[in-house]
């Protein structure tokens, strides 16, 4: 085993956190020192939301570990030229040579300063998989923390491959970095492209299977019949990117076609901004004395501050009132006896035009279908009912709307998230049992606790750590190459914020800078781990060209791949089944990870390192020592950079800061601190305990799945429906940018609407493509979309034969999926070799015909088109990442795009 462990084990406990829907707790069977089989850790059955089961991707770890194509020694590039067509000429090197080479660069940077002439960090790092690599990189976060500023803005897919709008607006509105139905109680889910059965991991699959078994209903609204669509009661094929219109029409039905008593009026009145009076310039009318927003109290027939006790706030009506209106940059208006309406009244008026008949034409869905979905939503809402959760009497609202990728990022993403969250509010179903829940926080602090992240902010809402927009506070540089603090107030400034900025701007600016931003520079040292942006980002050709210009790239490498093809040094790290690490589990996490327990799980090596592979923590320690930051590195570990703070009340397992520690010693101390933390200092077992048990947990009270009790405790409101704060920061941001002369972000500023209107979102793609490429959009008659794959997503496993083999049983893998009827009209047959071209690029592959896809839409599942990764390069599978352009015009205000574009299809050969 790694680090001198035993070699006669027959099984070890471990985890799989290859995707954001993990971790799954597992056991690995070992035969003659070789890991041969992954299986569920049945001892975790009682504590795990999916009975301790393990996702299909985890079974790939055996082939991953024993892979014949692994990089087995450090390697150093000999060909100074970089590019797809350049042979890197990697030669084998010793660890000493490779580490000294990297440390030399790092020491040189420390001597010259951590920031370059543009103010950007000279060191950059990119990690894939929505943050999951931290579960495999041991103490590397401590190295990064000790180092100082590191640029994480070179994205590997975030922004276009994630639910980006949900991440930002979700955190703003209900501490919901990701959003989930309360699946164990829900009766009706309306899912807009949320492919939970493919991307929700074992917890998502199990919870929804249980829901179906008890008769819950899911209506799937999406252009193609996905895995999740297959598992739904109904499929509604909607035109791509028109989802906001569908949801707006649902809101219209609820506000204009159904009686008010079908809504949860008390929730709207007490837990939302619905009663706040809106002044003529669109901002709240405020009490001049306290600056608090005013409501109209029907009892006293007067306008009073929103938090006045004993009031009966009006939601609708027009009232003659006086007060103060405060706009952007403290601009204010003193209003006397003006006519004002509450926010809810404005909402009612706002959605008046958005009838189902209006939406039907936009969405290509019958008006009756939309109307039926809306009324079913009300039918299942159980307005007025309650349920007990651990002694808490909470509202019971078993209806939810979930949003998928592409629906939920890029233009239209804001509107979808707003409408979805508003639909929950209308029935009082936000953050209550059965309803729509956030899962975790990443931008607010503390990251491991949604309840304690609920901090009172202005106007009766939760606080939110916006990047400043006020004059004198706004930051015209961001210490990141994508300007996330400059351009995206909602991106905040947590350790996750860089990854949630407009990551494609970092890549775009490597080609051409944006006016009035610092001159873009490549990073002097770029670390890459568990990501392959040359395959996984959009417009992969441009990304590859940028990567080729980076002067010094260090890739932690499993096998050769398209990104490390451009690397200067390859480092073989102990991969999933060879390294040691302790991670946090449980609580409520991404996607559908809602546990009744929380604690820690150990990744215990199932195999000796292959070749010269080294544990990531060993590599991190060596790099820290050789680059002269060992003390800061050890201190960073002590402060919790390895996942657990090593000291607390009554215990201290801190590492001596001034000396290097072995991997075993580091994790021994981490395990002891974890034991102490979980037992409030009563116990302090180390690695041996975790090796024997695999995990250690304590209860996580179920009421903490719901934010509602915390909101009630602090008498806070959800900031819906009216977005006064966004309106203000949008105006402020615009002013700041304009003061600096920046006009290229004006379109994004339009998203800062108090009540978002429908825009022609599909048309925005069409016109952006026409403008950027001088094409006629009519020549590109199809939309192309993508879909996640349970077998592949986030796994970085396209090079594994077993994964390919089992994934092939799902027939939409391995080609481009097209409507059978449309294909027949065009004379195309199953298996034909086709070229799919967008204005930006083309990709080729086999044609797969299905009835379950719109005639105007093509589908490419997963991310392929590898050209050097062993095995994957022979799969001959098309990828839409060659087709989607990175365009400022297709970047929304949060800095994300959406994974779709317009294409044409042509036959280039017969079937095999």
């Amino acid at each position, binding site marked *: 085993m790694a680090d001198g462990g035993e070699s006669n084990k027959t099984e070890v406990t471990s985890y799989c956190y290859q995707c954001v829907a993990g971790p799954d707790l597992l056991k690995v069977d070992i035969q003659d020192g*070789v890991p041969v089989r992954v*299986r569920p850790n049945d001892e975790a059955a009682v504590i795990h939301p999916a009975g301790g089961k393990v996702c299909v991707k985890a079974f790939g770890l055996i082939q991953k570990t024993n892979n014949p194509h692994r990089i087995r020694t450090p390697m150093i590039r000999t060909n100074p030229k970089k590019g797809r067509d350049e042979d890197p000429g990697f030669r084998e090197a010793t660890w000493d040579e490779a580490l000294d080479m990297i440390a030399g660069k790092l020491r040189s940077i420390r001597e010259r300063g951590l920031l370059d002439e543009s103010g950007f960090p000279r060191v950059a790092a990119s990690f894939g998989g929505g943050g999951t690599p931290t579960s495999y990189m041991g103490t590397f976060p401590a190295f990064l923390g000790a180092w100082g500023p590191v640029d994480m803005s070179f994205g590997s897919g975030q922004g276009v491959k994630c639910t980006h709008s949900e991440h930002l607006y979700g955190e703003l509105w209900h501490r919901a970095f990701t959003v989930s139905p309360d699946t164990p109680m829900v009766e009706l889910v309306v899912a807009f492209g949320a492919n939970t059965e493919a991307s929700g991991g074992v917890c998502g699959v199990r919870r929804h299977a249980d829901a179906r078994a008890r008769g819950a209903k899911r209506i799937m609204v999406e252009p193609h019949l996905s895995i999740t669509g297959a598992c739904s*009661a109904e499929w509604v*094929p909607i035109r791509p990117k028109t989802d906001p219109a569908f949801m707006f029409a649902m809101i219209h039905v609820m506000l204009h076609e159904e009686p008010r008593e079908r809504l949860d009026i008390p929730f709207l009145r007490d837990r939302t901004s619905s009663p706040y009076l809106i002044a003529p310039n669109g901002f709240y009318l405020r009490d001049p004395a306290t600056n608090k927003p005013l409501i109209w109290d029907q009892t006293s027939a007067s306008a009073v501050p929103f938090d006045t006790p004993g009031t009966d706030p009006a939601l609708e009506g027009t009232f003659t009132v006086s007060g103060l209106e405060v706009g952007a940059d403290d601009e204010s208006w003193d209003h006397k006896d003006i006519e004002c309406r509450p926010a809810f009244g404005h909402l009612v008026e706002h959605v008046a035009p958005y009838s189902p008949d209006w939406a039907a034409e936009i969405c290509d869905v019958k008006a009756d279908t939309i109307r039926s979905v809306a009324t079913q939503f009300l039918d299942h809402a159980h307005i007025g009912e309650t349920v007990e959760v651990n002694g808490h009497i909470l509202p019971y609202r078993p209806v939810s709307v979930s949003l998928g990728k592409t629906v939920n990022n890029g233009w239209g993403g804001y509107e979808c998230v707003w409408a979805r969250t508003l639909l929950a509010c209308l029935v009082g179903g936000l953050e209550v049992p059965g309803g729509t829940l956030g899962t975790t926080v990443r931008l607010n602090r503390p990251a491991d606790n949604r309840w304690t992240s609920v901090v009172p902010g202005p106007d009766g809402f939760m606080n939110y750590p916006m990047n400043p927009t006020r004059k004198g506070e706004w930051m015209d540089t961001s210490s990141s190459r994508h300007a996330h603090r400059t351009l995206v107030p909602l991106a905040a400034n947590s350790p996750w914020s860089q990854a949630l900025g407009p990551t494609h701007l970092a890549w775009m600016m490597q080609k051409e800078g944006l006016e009035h931003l610092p001159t873009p520079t490549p990073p002097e040292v770029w670390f890459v781990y568990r990501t392959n942006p040359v395959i996984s980002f959009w417009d992969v050709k441009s990304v590859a060209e940028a990567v080729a210009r980076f002067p010094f790239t260090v890739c932690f490498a499993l096998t050769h791949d398209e990104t490390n093809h451009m690397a200067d040094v390859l480092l073989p790290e102990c991969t999933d089944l060879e390294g040691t690490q302790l991670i946090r589990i449980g609580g409520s996490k991404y996607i559908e990870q809602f546990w009744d327990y929380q604690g820690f799980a150990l990744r215990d090596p199932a195999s000796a390192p292959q070749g010269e592979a080294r544990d990531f923590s060993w590599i991190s320690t060596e790099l820290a020592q050789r680059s002269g930051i060992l003390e800061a590195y050890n201190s960073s570990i002590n402060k919790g950079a390895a996942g657990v703070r090593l000291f607390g009340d009554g215990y201290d397992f801190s590492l001596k800061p001034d000396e290097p520690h072995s991997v075993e010693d580091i994790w021994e101390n981490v395990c002891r601190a974890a034991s102490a933390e979980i037992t409030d200092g009563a116990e302090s077992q180390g690695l041996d305990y975790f090796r024997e048990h695999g995990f250690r947990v304590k209860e996580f009270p179920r009421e903490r799945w719901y934010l509602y009790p915390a909101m009630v405790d602090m008498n806070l409101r959800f900031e819906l429906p009216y977005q006064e704060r966004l309106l203000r920061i949008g105006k402020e941001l615009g002013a700041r940018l304009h003061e600096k002369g920046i006009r290229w972000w004006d379109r994004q500023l339009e998203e800062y609407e108090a009540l978002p209107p429908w825009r022609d979102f599909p048309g925005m793609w069409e016109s952006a493509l026409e403008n950027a490429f001088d094409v006629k959009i009519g020549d590109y008659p199809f939309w192309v979309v993508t879909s996640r794959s349970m077998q592949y997503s986030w796994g970085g496993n396209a090079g594994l034969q077993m994964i390919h*083999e089992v*994934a092939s*049983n*799902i027939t939409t893998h391995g080609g481009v999926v097209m409507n059978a009827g449309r294909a027949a009209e065009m004379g195309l047959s*199953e298996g034909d070799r086709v070229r799919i071209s967008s204005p930006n690029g083309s990709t080729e592959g086999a044609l797969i015909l299905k*009835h379950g896809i719109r005639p105007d839409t093509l589908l490419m599942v997963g991310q392929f088109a590898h050209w050097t990764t062993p095995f994957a390069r022979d799969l001959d599978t098309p990828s839409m990442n060659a087709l989607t352009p990175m365009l400022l015009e297709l970047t929304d205000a949060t800095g994300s795009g959406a994974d779709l574009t317009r294409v044409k299809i042509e036959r280039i050969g017969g079937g095999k």
Partner: protein
Amino acid sequence: MTKWTIVADLNRCVGCQTCTAACKQTNATAPGVQWRKVLDFEAGEYPDVRRAFVPVGCMHCDEPPCLDVCPSTATLKRADGIVTIDYDICIGCAYCAVACPYQARFRVDTPNQAFGKDSQKMRHEIVRERPERRSVAQKCTLCVDKIDEGLANGLIPGIDANATPACVESCIAAALVFGDADDPDSNVSTLIAENRTFGMHEELGTGPNIRYLYSGKDFPEGSTATLVPNPIGQASVAPRHQHQWDWRAASNFVFGGAGTGLFTFAAVAGLFSPFLWWAGLLALAMVGLGLFCVWLEIGRPWRFLNVFRHPARSWMTREALAAMPYFGLGALAVLLTMPWPGFGAGGWVGLPAAAFALMFLYSQARILKAAKGIPVWRQEQIVPLIVTTGLTEGMGLFAVAALIAGTSASWISLTMAALAGLRWLAWRSYRGALAAEGAPTQSLIKLDAGPLNLSAPGQAAIVALALAGLVLPGVTALAGLLAVATGWAFKFTLITRAAYNQGYAIEAMPARGAGKPAPGVKPGWTRA
């Protein structure tokens, strides 16, 4: 008694293939071999489309066709219902693979090497090498070792993970449930009693023991799957061309049928005229050549004697048993009638061998009929068709032999004509039955294609030529050659090109949650 059964809840299954992967890893199966897998079905036309995921594998049938056909007794059914394979006995003839209507059986002739011959063998492939499994039949064992070991340790299969098949143990949707269907209180019995279930291809009488659970609310009893003749997008579930038996197996039916037919007519003719010893020798050689070809095809050729182990049920054993006296008595007849000094036995000498030739021929017909996995083989009317074409081909060859020997008799022409006519009737009856009952679309296309088939014009020409032989000497031999050519072409097509397997079908597209079920589909099947 115990009857281990899997219930697969189609409302729960999401097609994730975790069971597929867990099975592969637990059983160290070869690349491409999936004892358990989950199918991806689509039904309907846009926009009214359904998609369902259906776990399949060995059904551990109540009446396993694989067991009946196995000539070596390698396949057995345990008292608890598990169908097992003894790798040390199996000869690798793959008869079980074509007999299984669930495509559950595999034969792999090379060691596991997932990344191909050009890559290094992986460590787990080395330590989990299973040479005893090479070139013999393999399939799902229901993880019988886990069950037995679990039971021995007081565990309950289906409840305790360590006594439960890996697919069920790993199922993330709790869609797969394992238990004892003979115990009325078991988990599976309860599910079966309280829900609508179906078995796949139940009409074949196999009694499959994977029961598919679906909501039957609003779904009429006795619904049958809709045949989808042109299964666009359904290649993975539609009938596929079987690759287990190729030209080598076909040769046995080609030469075995014609050879036994030839010997039969040589022997019958011997009652009226001298036994044509060289025709008899040719007939023996033909059957021998056919069997040699089959021997070339089996995975473990040096275990060929195991073919005799299952006379009670296997028509392949019976074919082999008939071959022995056929060769012995036939050789004796040839020896006795050869123009050697002191020999010259009477014509009757061929009759005992001819009796075994007919048994051999009949066994061949029954071999195909017992192959339940191939719809165009298992059809009832295949038996008279295979027998009549064997006899017709034999008669055709005999007509040529008679011409060479200089004998001509009107009975040869008349018999030739009659047999060709009978064969055509048998073909028409067979083809009509396929049309009525339905068959894989591709099988029918292949059977009907080509100039050398058994359809009316060609066969009428043979009859006409044979009758013309009454007045024109030698023309009967021409008819005979044509009869042989069409018969051989038919059988070669039947065994190879037209041999599409059963494919998969489901009785109902399951309701999902509060949704409704819909009629199932049988992709790639047609009635025509």
